[in-house]
C-alpha cells in the first residue's frame, strides 16, 4: 500500500472523468469538491498529522484568493504569476500566525480560538479596506486565454484543480514518510515526549503551518480564477474554515486520502440534501454538522479508517466467541 501507486491510480481514475462525463453540472460539482479537498489537504497537514486544530483556515484560503485577484486586477500581474504568489502568500501568513501562536505556546482550545480570531480580523479588514474592493469585492475580468489562466472548458479547470490535488497528495505522502512527518506526528501524540527526543516542537509545528497554509491558499487562488470574483465573506468567511476541517476529519485525519474522500462524500451529501428539499439554504450544512459529530463519535479514524476499525471489531468479536466457545 505504502507507495506512489495508489496515488497514481486514484489521480488517473479521476483524470478520465471529463472524457466520460460531459455534463457541466457534474463537472462543476467535482471541481468544487476537489477545491474543498485541496483546502482540506492543507488543514490535514497541520490538524491531521500535527494535531493542531485550526478553526480559521480561511486565513489561508482568503489570502490566496485575494492575492491572486488583486495582483491581476490592481497591478496587472500575469495570472500564473499571481497564482504562484498567492500560494507563497499563504506560506508567509502561515509563518506569521504560526510564529505568534506557537511561540506563545497556544494549544488545543486556545489555538483554535486564535486562528478563528485571525480569520475574523482579516474578514472585517477585507470588508472595509479599498484594496480588496471593500464591501463590493473584487471582480476579475473575463479573459479566456491560457496566459490569463482562464479556460473556456470546465474540463481544463477540472484538470488544473486535480493537478493541484495530486501535488498535495504527493506532498502529504512525502511528509508522512519523512523525518519531519515522524516528528510532526510525535508532537501530535505527545509534545513533551517529542521534545525529550530532540524534536524542536515549535519549529516542527511552524513547518507544518507553512505547508498547510500554502496548500489551502492554493485552493483560494483557484477559487478566484474559477469564479472570477471574491469578497470578504467568501475569502475569510467561516464557511471555508469549517469545510477545510470537515473534509479531513470525516474522510480520515492524518491519512493521505482522507481529505479527498471526505470532500467527495461531504459534497455529495450536501448536494443530495439540497436536491431533496429543493435548494433550501442551510440544509446541506446541517447534514455536514451531523456527519461531523457522527464521525467523531462513531468512526474516530474517519471513513478511510472505518474498514480497519470494523475489521478490528470483527476480530475482537471472533476472539471473544472463540474464547467463550
Amino acid at each position, binding site marked *: 500500500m505504502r507507495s506512489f501507486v495508489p496515488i497514481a491510480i486514484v489521480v488517473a481514475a479521476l483524470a478520465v472523468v471529463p472524457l466520460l462525463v460531459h455534463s457541466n453540472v457534474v463537472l462543476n460539482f467535482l471541481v468544487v469538491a476537489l477545491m474543498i479537498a485541496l483546502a482540506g489537504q492543507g488543514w490535514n497537514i497541520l490538524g491531521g498529522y500535527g494535531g493542531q486544530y485550526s478553526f480559521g483556515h480561511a486565513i489561508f484560503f482568503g489570502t490566496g484568493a485575494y492575492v491572486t485577484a488583486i495582483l491581476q486586477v490592481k497591478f496587472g500581474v500575469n495570472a500564473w504569476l499571481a497564482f504562484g504568489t498567492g500560494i507563497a502568500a499563504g506560506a508567509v501568513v502561515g509563518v506569521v500566525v504560526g510564529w505568534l501562536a506557537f511561540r506563545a505556546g497556544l494549544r488545543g482550545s486556545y489555538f483554535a480560538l486564535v486562528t478563528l480570531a485571525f480569520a475574523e480580523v482579516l474578514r472585517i479588514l477585507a470588508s472595509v479596506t479599498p484594496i480588496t474592493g471593500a464591501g463590493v469585492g473584487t471582480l476579475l475580468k473575463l479573459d479566456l486565454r491560457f496566459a490569463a489562466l482562464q479556460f473556456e472548458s470546465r474540463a481544463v479547470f477540472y484538470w488544473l484543480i486535480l493537478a493541484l490535488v495530486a501535488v498535495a497528495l504527493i506532498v502529504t505522502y512525502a511528509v508522512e*514518510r*519523512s*523525518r519531519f512527518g*515522524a*516528528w510532526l*506526528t*510525535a508532537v*501530535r*501524540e*505527545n509534545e*513533551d*515526549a*517529542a*521534545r*525529550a*527526543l*530532540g*524534536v*524542536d*516542537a515549535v519549529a516542527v509545528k511552524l513547518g507544518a503551518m507553512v505547508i498547510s497554509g500554502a496548500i489551502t491558499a492554493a485552493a483560494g487562488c483557484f477559487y478566484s480564477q474559477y469564479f472570477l470574483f471574491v469578497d470578504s465573506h467568501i475569502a475569510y468567511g467561516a464557511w471555508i474554515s469549517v469545510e477545510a476541517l470537515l473534509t479531513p476529519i470525516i474522510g480520515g485525519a492524518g491519512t493521505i486520502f482522507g481529505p479527498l474522500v471526505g470532500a467527495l462524500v461531504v459534497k455529495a451529501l450536501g448536494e443530495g440534501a439540497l436536491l431533496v428539499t429543493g435548494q433550501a439554504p442551510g440544509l446541506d450544512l446541517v447534514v455536514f454538522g451531523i456527519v461531523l459529530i457522527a464521525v467523531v463519535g462513531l468512526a474516530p479514524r474517519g471513513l478511510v479508517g472505518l474498514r480497519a476499525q470494523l475489521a478490528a471489531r470483527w476480530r475482537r468479536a471472533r476472539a471473544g466467541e472463540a474464547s467463550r466457545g
Partner: protein
Amino acid sequence: MAEALLTVEGVSRRFGGLLAVGAVSLIAAEGRITALIGPNGAGKTTMFALISGFLKPSDGSVRFGGDNVTGEPAHRLARRGIARTFQIVQPFAGLTVRENIRVGAHLRHAGRAAALAAAEAVAREVGLAGLLDAPADSLTVAGRKRLELAKALATEPKLLLLDEVLAGLNPSEIRDIIPVIRGLRDRGITILMIEHVMQAVMSLAEHVYVLAEGRIIATGTPAEVACDPVVIEAYLGHGAAKRLARAP
C-alpha cells in the same frame, strides 16, 4: 575517579513559595552509573527536568561535557546527548512500538530506512523485538517502561537519565531489566538514575546521592549511604536511626 560528564552546581528551583530543589550540586562520572535517591517529593524528578531542559533553574549552573548548558531547551540538550525517561511514561499512544522508537532514532538518522533499522536494533536491545508492530497503548506496564527506555536510547545519548524505570515492575521483571541497564553502561553510556528499589541501586550504582526536601543530605557508595543515620532519618522519620540501632 573518572571524568565528570555532567556537573550540576548549586542549582535551585522554586515553584511559587515552594523550594523544590535548593542549591543542589552533583556529578555524573563518565561511563558510570550514578543513582539519585530520596523520599517522595524530595525533588528528584524536578532535578531531572532541570538537567534535561524541561525546567529552567532559578539559580546555579549545569555543565555537560565541558559546555555550560544551563537553561538550554530540551530538544537542544537531546541533540547534545542527554536523554531522559519520564517517571509517568509518555508513549506516543496512537503509534506502534516501532514508530515510537523511530521518533527517537531520527535524531541521529535523517533517512527513514536508517531510522527504522536503528529502531529495530534498539528494540532488540531492550527486549521489545517481538512487539514492534503492537500499538503502544496495548503494552503492559513493563512493556511501557521498556518502550520509555527504548525511545530515549534511540537518540544515542551520552548521558541517560532514568526516572524510576523499575517502579511498578514485579521482582522477576526487575531481574530481567537490570542486566539491560548494566549492558548500556558497559557500552559506554553514562547513567544517572532515580530509583526507589534499593536492591537495584545497590547492585547497579557506583555512586549515590541522597536528596531530601530539595537538598543533598548524603553522598557516597551505596553501602556507605545505606547505613548513614541521616539517610535513615530522612526516609523513616525523626529518631528512626536510633530505634533501628537499638533493635536486635
